[in-house]
Structure formats: structure tokens, C-alpha cells
């Protein structure tokens, strides 16, 4: 073993309690960081998946401007043909066309303003989880049937059940009066209040007739296997769109801008807190290393008089810090992942989580997962801060005069 290495190792154990207290501060912070980051990163990806899988999808082909205004006349012409040709060209069936309108829906007793979406029944099931959330009745099946699937809260508010009729009143794409009578065949319960209260789906063929769409729709949803593949697929998709058609592709961040920003806002406030923890650990290290250097002034003076370069002494002090830092990082990461591992089975619930969970499309109980990033990032930050803190004590040695140092008590 290298002599400097051995020297450093012995030095840190000259004051075992101090070393453990310094490493303890690191362990404490690291356990917290590993757990919190595993929890947060898991939560973010759930938030993204859950928010996108109901309606938004990974990306949508739309007419320019539709994303901001959602006007009836901002249409995609021949939307059914477009989605069919995209399915063929991309060899994927997670692509579906839709059209959307706002109408007044009336049952025998009640009337509510709702958003109504025309979907391709067969392909809609591949891009949205709403068909899987139908708790009563069934999802749409035929493209022209006068059938409707409504949200659970909406069904309750309208006082309708499977088999009841609804009248929908609105305006067609040309501004003319549009009306239809449809039969409720399914009720979905997504747990997202906004969807359950204000959303209904009808077949795209029926939508086309009722709202005088003449084959046009409002967007084509395109899903990648997972959200990570979305950017690559988007590039491929953009190249496939006909040159002359005035169409744009928007990714989920553009379609649902609040989502990424909510994550960023949460992330930046947490990183402020993590930064503070790391700084406090750094102070602890600074204190310990400065004390340990000052204590050894006499001994450092002697070894310098014997010819040891101040640079080497500085490296010795840094090496000691690295050792304490590694001790804190390894134990902290280990305990942190054990803690996270425990909660990955039992789940984790913050009091009041339920209401917040609904707001962000999350389940009430979360199961954090340790990932390489969540395991290494926190301890890595703490380690770097600790090293930075030791720079000053190490540099002090450069100005040490052997004779003065030996005179020190």
C-alpha cells in the first residue's frame, strides 16, 4: 500500500469520534437524498405517464394554432386517411385520429356543457387508457353507431345510466346548428375529476356526420413505446407529413405545458434544500479538517523540515477528506437504498397526499424505486462539496514555515 494512503488512513482514525461525526453528517444527508430522489424521480415519471395516457399521448399532429385556441375550424383534413397512412408508414398501431367539440348534453332531467371527442374506436384503445377504465357497460366499437361513453361524474350529474339517451346540442364546423341523440353504452371512471366531469367520447364517423366535418378532424395522436422514445419518433413523423399539408407535430410538453413546469418547479425547490444540506455537510468537513490540520502543525513542521514538500502534505489532507467522504457516501448510499427498498414494497404515503395526488394524476400510495441516478446523484453532490470544503485547510499548509510550525504547541 502506498505510504501516503496508509498515512491518511491512520490519520483519520486518530480521532475516531470526530471522523464518525463528520461521516455521520454525510450519512444522514445521503440517506435523505437517496430516498427523496428515488421518491421524486419515480413520482415524476408516474405523473408524466398517468397524465399522458388518458388523452394527450406522446405527440399530436394538428393544424397550426389549434394547440392554443382549440377552435372548431382549425382542422386536419381527411384525418382518418392521415392516421391510416401514418399507421402503415410507421408500422405502428398506437396512432389514432380524433375530433373535438364543446356541446350542451341533455338528459331527461339535466343539461351540462361538456367536451365531446370523436374517436376511432378500434385504435383509440391503443393510445388511451379510457377504454380500459370503463367501469360500467362497454367501450365504443363501431365507427358510425349513435353511441356515447361518458365520465362517471358526468353520468351522475346528468342522472343517466347505460341504455339512456342523451341529446347533444352544439355547432358544426361551419357554424351551423348541430344536434344528435345518442345512447349511453359505457361509463368510465378515470379518477381524474376534470375528465370524469366534463368528457364524453363518440365514434369518429358519427362525429363527422353530426358536426359536418366532411372527413376532417382535429388531431392525430401518436404514441411511442415509452415516453423516452418520443423525440426520435417525432423526428420520423415530421419527415413523413406531406409537404403541402399545413400541419405541425407537437410533443407532450407543448400539449400539456404545465406538467414539465410543475416538475421543474418542484425540482428546483428541492434542489435548493439539497444544496443547503450539502453546504452544511461542507461546513462540518471544513471544521474537522481545519482542526485536524491545526492540531498537527507541530508534526507537519517536523516532516517539512525533514524535506517533505508542502504539496504532498496538502494531498495528504485531501486524501483524508476523500476517505471520510467515501465512508459517508458508501454507508449513506447503502442505508438510503435499503430504506428506499423497504418502501418500494410497503409503499409510501404522505399525509394529505390523496388530495395532492388527484391534482397531479398520481396514485395515493407511491412505491419509490432506486435507480442509478437517484443512488449516485445525492451522495455525489455531498462528496464534491466535502472535497471543496477541504481545499482551504489543505492550501493553508503551503504557507507553513517549518521552523515556526515546530515551535507551535
Amino acid at each position, binding site marked *: 500500500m502506498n505510504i501516503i494512503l496508509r498515512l491518511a488512513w491512520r490519520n483519520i482514525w486518530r480521532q475516531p469520534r470526530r471522523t464518525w461525526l463528520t461521516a455521520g453528517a454525510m450519512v444522514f444527508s445521503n440517506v435523505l437524498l437517496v430516498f427523496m430522489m428515488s421518491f421524486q424521480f419515480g413520482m415524476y415519471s408516474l405523473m408524466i405517464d398517468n397524465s399522458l395516457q388518458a388523452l394527450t399521448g406522446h405527440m399530436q399532429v394538428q393544424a397550426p394554432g389549434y394547440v392554443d*385556441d382549440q377552435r372548431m375550424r382549425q382542422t386536419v383534413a381527411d384525418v382518418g386517411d392521415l392516421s391510416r397512412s401514418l399507421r402503415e408508414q410507421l408500422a405502428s398501431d398506437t396512432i389514432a385520429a380524433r375530433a373535438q367539440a364543446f356541446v350542451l348534453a341533455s338528459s331527461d332531467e339535466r*343539461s351540462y356543457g361538456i367536451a365531446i371527442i370523436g374517436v376511432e374506436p378500434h385504435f383509440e384503445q391503443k393510445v388511451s387508457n379510457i377504454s380500459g377504465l370503463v367501469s360500467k357497460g362497454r367501450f365504443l366499437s363501431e365507427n358510425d353507431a349513435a353511441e356515447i361513453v361518458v365520465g362517471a361524474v358526468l353520468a351522475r350529474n346528468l342522472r343517466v345510466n347505460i341504455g339512456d339517451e342523451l341529446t347533444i346540442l352544439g355547432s358544426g364546423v361551419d357554424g351551423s346548428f348541430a344536434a344528435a341523440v345518442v345512447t349511453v353504452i359505457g361509463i368510465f371512471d378515470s379518477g381524474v375529476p376534470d375528465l370524469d366531469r366534463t368528457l364524453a367520447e363518440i365514434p369518429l364517423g358519427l362525429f363527422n356526420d353530426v358536426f359536418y366535418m366532411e372527413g376532417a378532424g382535429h388531431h392525430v395522436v401518436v404514441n411511442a413505446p415509452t415516453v423516452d422514445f418520443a423525440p426520435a419518433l417525432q423526428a420520423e413523423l415530421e419527415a413523413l407529413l406531406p409537404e403541402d399539408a399545413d400541419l405541425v407535430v407537437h410533443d407532450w410538453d407543448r400539449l400539456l405545458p404545465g406538467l414539465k413546469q410543475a416538475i421543474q418547479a418542484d425540482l428546483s425547490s428541492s434542489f435548493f434544500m439539497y444544496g443547503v444540506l450539502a453546504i452544511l455537510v461542507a461546513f462540518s468537513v471544513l471544521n474537522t479538517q*481545519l482542526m485536524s490540520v491545526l492540531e498537527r502543525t507541530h508534526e507537519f513542521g517536523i516532516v517539512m523540515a525533514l524535506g517533505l514538500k508542502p504539496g504532498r502534505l496538502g494531498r495528504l489532507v485531501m486524501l483524508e477528506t476523500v476517505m471520510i467522504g467515501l465512508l459517508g457516501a458508501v454507508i449513506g448510499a447503502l442505508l438510503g437504498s435499503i430504506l428506499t427498498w423497504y418502501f418500494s414494497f410497503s409503499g409510501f404515503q404522505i399525509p*394529505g397526499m390523496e388530495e395532492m395526488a388527484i391534482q397531479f394524476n398520481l396514485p395515493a400510495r407511491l412505491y419509490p424505486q432506486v435507480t442509478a441516478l437517484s443512488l449516485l446523484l445525492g451522495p455525489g453532490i455531498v462528496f464534491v462539496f466535502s472535497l471543496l470544503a477541504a481545499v482551504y485547510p489543505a492550501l493553508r499548509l503551503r504557507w507553513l514555515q517549518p521552523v515556526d510550525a515546530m515551535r507551535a504547541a
Partner: protein
Amino acid sequence: MNTLRVLLMLAWRNLWRNHRRTFIMLAAISVGVWAMIFMTALTQGMVNEMVKDGVSALPGHVQVHHPNYRDDPNINNLIPMADTELSAKFAAAGFEQWASRIKVPAVITSERESRGVTLLGIDPNRERDLTFVDYEDIDGRFLEDEADKGVVIGRKLAETLDTDVGKRIVIMSQDPKNDIADRGFRVVGLFGANMQSLEETYVFAGKQTIQKLLSVGDHVTELVAMGDDYRNVEPVYEKVVKLVDDSVVVNRWFELDSYLGTMLRVMDGFVLIWVVVIFLALSFGLVNTLVMAVFERVREIGLMLALGMKPSSILGQIIIESMLLLVIGLAIGNVLAVASIAPLNSGIDISIVAEGMEMMGSASVLYPQLRMEDVILANVVVLILGFFASLSPAWRASRFQPIEAITRVD
């Protein structure tokens, strides 16, 4: 008393024997305390804005409805008592603010577009200070009285509907017999609000006009009263309960919006957790410092014991030293926190993440809120936990055997 003064002086002098260590520890405590208070003020500010916006979007600290209205916000679930009679009672009760209104779902249609909205039939003179509308920032005019025949809609809604001040729109809703009630209105004003969703959702019209449209005579769906502080709505609640009979339900705002109510409670818990976490991170350094201080002075402590100083005095001396350190650190930390929050009081612009904040229910300007109770909480927690953290090194020092301690060589 005299002993205490001596101990205090000893502790004070001991503190400055190793001034470098003391300064580092002071820096750590100050930064920790600063972070405790600063972060707390930011989150409290955020929650405060969220709740304030949420309460003003409801709006009303205490609300009266038909028992079925919350579950089924329909025109059939009217408050059974006549509006004029109830209003007279409320007016006489001397609330800070109160109003009665009709609030029902409706569809609004321009020549080109339709949207689902919440229609509010209000008495504009009563609602002046109640809503989220910024009256300084209105295109056209706001409603003039409860018989006003115009409507005021949000700017964003006007944009999607392709309409403007002076143009006509149609509002459709249902009357109690479930016949479609529809009527053309002229848009007389556009309002702006600090959240886009408010501009998209709410449509204001005169109360009497809407009562006529929906043929509900002298009835309303909602009666609200405001106190001066959303954190303390009990006095208003009790007053309202006395005014109404049991044909209606009375709710406080946090019962109506459980997300906001929960946020407020969770945040108070968060503040405590945050303060304790920071303290724990600090405590390692604090204990370390004390252990070092005791360790350096083994011989002198032994000498003091041999000369007849009581072990309890040694214990006291170390604890006083630790408390002095904490008190100075706290003082600096508090001053830093106040000094860094003061320039931010005019608001921090976080509009880069505006839509994300809106998803959480908060607007895009953050006003840090420095609350006395949070500052006191942070200080008290640090002092109490600091006391317990210093017990072990202090206890150890007071248990030294004089002979062993004096003769110890390091």
C-alpha cells in the same frame, strides 16, 4: 446567581479560545437557520397565494348551499329560502362582506365556437371585492347592477370564442323543468385574472337577468360571507349558521376545496420537518465542536474538579457554551433571513414555470411570507434540540475523574 455569572463568563471566554472553529460553526448555524426561515417563507408565500387565489376563485370563506348542490351543482338545487328575505338577514348581521348569487353550468356560443363555462349571476355592487376579477384591468366595463343585460367574460375565453366587447354571444343552460333556457347577450366587458383557467371558466351576468332567464323567481344557488382572514373563518361560520335554517348546509372554504385545505395543513407539517432536518444536519457539527472543545480541555477540567468545582457546574458550563454558540448563530441567521426576504417582498417572478404553477393552483408571482410563528418555531426547535445534543458531551466532561484527567497526556 454568582455561580451562573462565573459560568457564563467562563463559557464565553472558552468559546473564543478557538475562534476559527467558533466562526466556522457560527457560519454553519447561520446558513442553516437562514435556509430554514428563507425556505419556509417561500413555501408559506406560495401556499398563501394558492389559498388566497383559491378562496377568491370559489369565492367566499363560508358558503351556504342546498344540501345536494355540491354534489350536483344544478339549478334544481336552489336555496329554499327567498333571496330578498335572506339577503336582508345577512345585510343586518354586519359581515365584512357577503353576497348571494346564482352559479350554474352553462354553454356559451359565439358565431364560431362553443365552450362549457360556469355562469355566475351576481349583484355587482355586492361582489366588488369578492371576486378574482381585477377591476383596474377590464376592457369595456364591468356589470353595473343586478339587472344589467350584458355579460362580462374572461379575455382568454373571448379569444377562443373569437368575440369581443360589443359582440353578441348566446348562453344556454337549463331551467328547473329541464327545458333549455337560452338567450343572446352582448359582451360588455372582458376581465383579466392571474390564472388562465379563471379567464376560461367564469362568465358574469346580472343576477336578476339570470333569475329571469332560468325562471327561478327570487331564488339563488349560493350565499357567501367573508371574514378578514382565511385562516380564521370560525367567527364568520358561527354567525352564518345562526342566520339559516337546516334546509341548507353551511361549509367553510377548506371543506369546499379539500386540495387547498390539505395544502395548508401539509405545509405547516412541512415547515416543522424542514426545520428538524436542517437541525439534524447541523447537530453533527455542533456535537463535533463540543466533543473537540471538551477533549482539548481534559486536563483543565480535571484541575477545576480537583479544586472543588462541582460536576454540575462543568455540565452547566459546556451547555452554556453550546447555547451561546446557538444563540449567536440564530441571531445572525434570523437577521440574514429577514434581510434576504425584505427585497423580495414585491414578489418573485416565476413566470417561466407559470403553467406548472397553475397546475398546482398558484399564480406566477411568488410573495415570500415571513410569519412570526414560523420564525419562532425555527428558533425554539434549534434551541431545544441543541440543548439535548449538547447534553452528552457535557455530561461526559462532568464525569471526569480529577486525577486521571489531570495526568492524561495526549
